[in-house]
């Protein structure tokens, strides 16, 4: 009897043999995201995971191609207003929301007003409306209507600004169905969606997955897959294992999985590698550490960094040298900036010229960053000690605390980055290095640079604007405002039977043409 009982217990404990494994529907594209979206709401979104889901469901005036260009989407064309600053948009006709209602100018105005109204939910997109006439009044509750937006007819809308904002058409807005709240109530986003995009919201199982279904009536043509499944997988190792086991068609890897993915020759033909839409830099705050006031010290620090060794040793080859403060893949990038050199001898000489020969007379300084950059700041501390004789102490700080003190201009020496908000180099030069920008964390300030950037923000012609960026970037680099650091890549693996999907500098591409063979 003992045997029989034991056997029964064993069959209970090891049901492995009984398992029938059923693969998911082969026509659904399965991809990973590393956390739940904070909400699948086109108004409140403020982080990458929400964005990656929303961009499949919602559209704005323009959409971004995988190589970083903006294409007309819900606007077919636009022209500057003759009466002042602003644009007149001609909207696409015959576009239907997923609810079946027609998309028209009133939905654009509705979206803008919802982003701004007090007690509203405006997330990141709200910042793009700062220059629209009447935005401040609406925000403060002094108006209920956005004065600067005029509906000319069903498919024409005019947006007027208080000052020029030539990039307005490429800002990422997600236009929403103005009738959705009346139809489904305030929590509509838990039941449905209010977009026009190639996919519709199906369900969100918190902590497990977000499912989208194809929109057969999409104006750009029905998608060729049945839907998209975003599996929520917090760690890169698990995502890679699921990819190996055939549970994912496309896997976007976090940086700590790069080594495992790049060192495996089996993945070579499946690897997609594109530069991230992210600029990296060394912050040197001149107000907080006196030696940084001397340009020669800043140049010496840049010359002391062996960027090739960093790319190999710190980034497993998944990075590329950055010589300025714009990245390839983002319009306005300047590929002609001379390459930064590793020249310890010249670095020593410059430091001596500045009166700090061998690091003498330089007080010790902390170099701060977050936990994932522990190795990197240790490298800087060692390298600057070895080459320049500087006494640099690496210090790891909790992320939110670190960002808060950087924003307050309270960190003297730090490597950090800035990720593009829209596909134009202004997102880097304007937001990171303009004196008045709250994101100018090293607090570098240069009047000539500011003037060029202000001028560029009023220049609608791309070629002319890019020329202004080049001049401004040259000022920035000639002054050694920073030591640019190697820029990292987005790395993804794609199964050989999956076509027309990729990762872009911003993350996943829109999957409207995805094909699973």
């Amino acid at each position: 009897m003992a045997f029989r009982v034991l056997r029964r217990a064993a069959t209970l404990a090891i049901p492995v043999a009984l398992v029938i494994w059923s693969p998911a529907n082969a026509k659904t594209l399965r991809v990973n995201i590393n956390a739940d979206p904070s909400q699948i709401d086109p108004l409140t979104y403020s982080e990458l995971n929400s964005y990656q889901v929303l961009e499949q469901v919602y559209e704005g005036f323009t959409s971004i191609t995988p190589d970083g260009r903006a294409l007309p989407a819900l606007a077919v064309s636009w022209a500057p207003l003759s009466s002042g600053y602003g644009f007149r948009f001609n909207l696409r006709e015959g576009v239907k929301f997923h609810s079946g209602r027609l998309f028209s100018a009133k939905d654009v105005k509705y979206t803008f007003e919802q982003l701004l109204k007090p007690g509203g939910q405006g997330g990141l997109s709200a910042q793009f409306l700062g220059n629209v006439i009447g935005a401040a009044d609406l925000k403060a509750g002094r108006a209920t209507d956005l004065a600067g937006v005029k509906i000319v007819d069903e498919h024409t809308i005019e947006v007027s600004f208080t000052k020029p904002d030539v990039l307005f058409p490429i800002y990422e807005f997600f236009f929403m169905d103005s009738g959705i709240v009346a139809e489904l109530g305030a929590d509509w986003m838990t039941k449905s969606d209010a977009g026009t995009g190639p996919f519709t919201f199906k369900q969100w199982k918190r902590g497990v997955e977000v499912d989208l279904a194809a929109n057969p009536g999409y104006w750009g043509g029905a998608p060729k897959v049945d839907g998209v499944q975003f599996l929520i997988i917090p760690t890169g190792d698990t995502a890679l294992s699921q990819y190996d086991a055939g549970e994912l068609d496309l896997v976007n890897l976090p940086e700590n999985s790069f080594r495992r993915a790049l060192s495996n020759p089996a993945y070579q033909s499946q690897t997609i590698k594109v530069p991230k839409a992210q600029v990296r830099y060394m912050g040197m705050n001149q107000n907080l550490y006196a030696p940084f006031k001397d340009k020669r010290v800043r140049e010496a620090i840049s010359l002391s960094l062996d960027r090739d060794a960093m790319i190999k040793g710190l980034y497993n080859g998944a990075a590329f040298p950055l010589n300025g403060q714009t990245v390839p893949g983002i319009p306005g990038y300047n590929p002609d900036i001379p390459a930064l050199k590793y020249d310890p001898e010249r670095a020593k000489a410059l430091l001596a010229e500045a009166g700090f020969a061998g690091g003498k007379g330089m007080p010790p300084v902390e170099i701060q960053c977050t936990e994932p950059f522990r190795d990197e700041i240790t490298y800087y501390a060692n390298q600057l000690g070895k080459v320049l004789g500087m006494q640099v102490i690496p210090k790891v700080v909790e992320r939110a605390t670190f960002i808060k003190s950087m924003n307050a201009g309270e960190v003297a020496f730090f490597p950090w980055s800035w990720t593009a908000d829209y596909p134009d180099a202004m997102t880097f030069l304007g937001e990171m290095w303009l004196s008045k920008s709250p994101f100018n964390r090293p607090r570098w300030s240069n009047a000539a640079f500011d003037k060029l950037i202000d001028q560029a923000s009023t220049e609608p012609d791309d070629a002319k604007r890019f020329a202004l960026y080049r001049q401004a970037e040259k000022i920035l680099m000639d002054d050694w405002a920073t030591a640019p650091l190697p820029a990292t890549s987005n790395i993804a693996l794609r199964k050989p039977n999956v076509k027309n999907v990729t990762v872009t500098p911003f993350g996943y591409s829109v999957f409207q043409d995805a094909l699973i063979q």
Partner: protein
Amino acid sequence: MTMFLVRRLLGLVPVLAVAIVLTFAALQSLPGDPVAVMLSDHSADVELAARLRAEYGLDQPMWRQFLTYVTHVVEGDFGLSFRFVHTPVIEVLADGLKVSPLLALAALAIAFPLGAFAGSYAAIHRNRWPDTAVILFLVAGISIPNFALATFLVYVLSIKLGVLPVAGWGSFDRAVLPVLILAIPCAAYLARLARALMLEVLQQDYVRTARAKGMSERVVVWRHAFRNILVPLLTQTGVIFGGLLSTTFVVETIFNIPGLGRLAIQSIFARDYPVAMAIILLFTLFYALINLTVDLLCAAIDPRLRAEGAGRP
């Protein structure tokens, strides 16, 4: 008995009160600001940050935040999650509540019979090969860390053989590996206990009497001895169940299961204080209730405990 129960339930109140104060203090003293986490790189956007701070009451002084929190908790309202926009904590927890206790119970349902039988079986075959095999299993089960075992099993069963999914939740096959990983150390622990208990029981006079009466060995062992080890084993199971709930933190993270354990870890990293607080309070309550249940079971079996409990000042 009723008095005993009432006393013990009242005893939960100070335990939970201490848990609230400690977790509130611990979470507040963590470095990092929830609004900065919400906005990440864009937290220099002063306007947006101020709006969010006011919306979540984070602009209030600490003591007022605490008072508001306690008042709301007493009313059964755990507030809004910081991580999931405009979502009540209860809603965030709802899915996890269905997962973690289920995982722990499933593991226990496998571990208890397996451990009890394997241990007893080893004891009656003492110093022969079945005993050695069971001892080998229990040493391995107790000493191999669950994350190592999990990685090994995933590599062999999922990646090499492809018979089970790597991770995830929502179907029977996805539950197999996590439940096994939870059950194995438990079963090993229970087997060790059962073996020791059985060895002791088999030396007892009543067993000798039963044998002397000419009963078959099978009846002696399984009807007389085995029943007597079940009581102490059940007592231990209460403690083990509490341990299982904690192990779900690790197992849920490894297998990417949307339970309370993984949610707690993510909430702490995301500075989602309301969700983290609620989970910690829930686990405190679970532990307290499990201990209470075990005490009640013991009291039901042993009247002396009941009297002692009732007479406690």
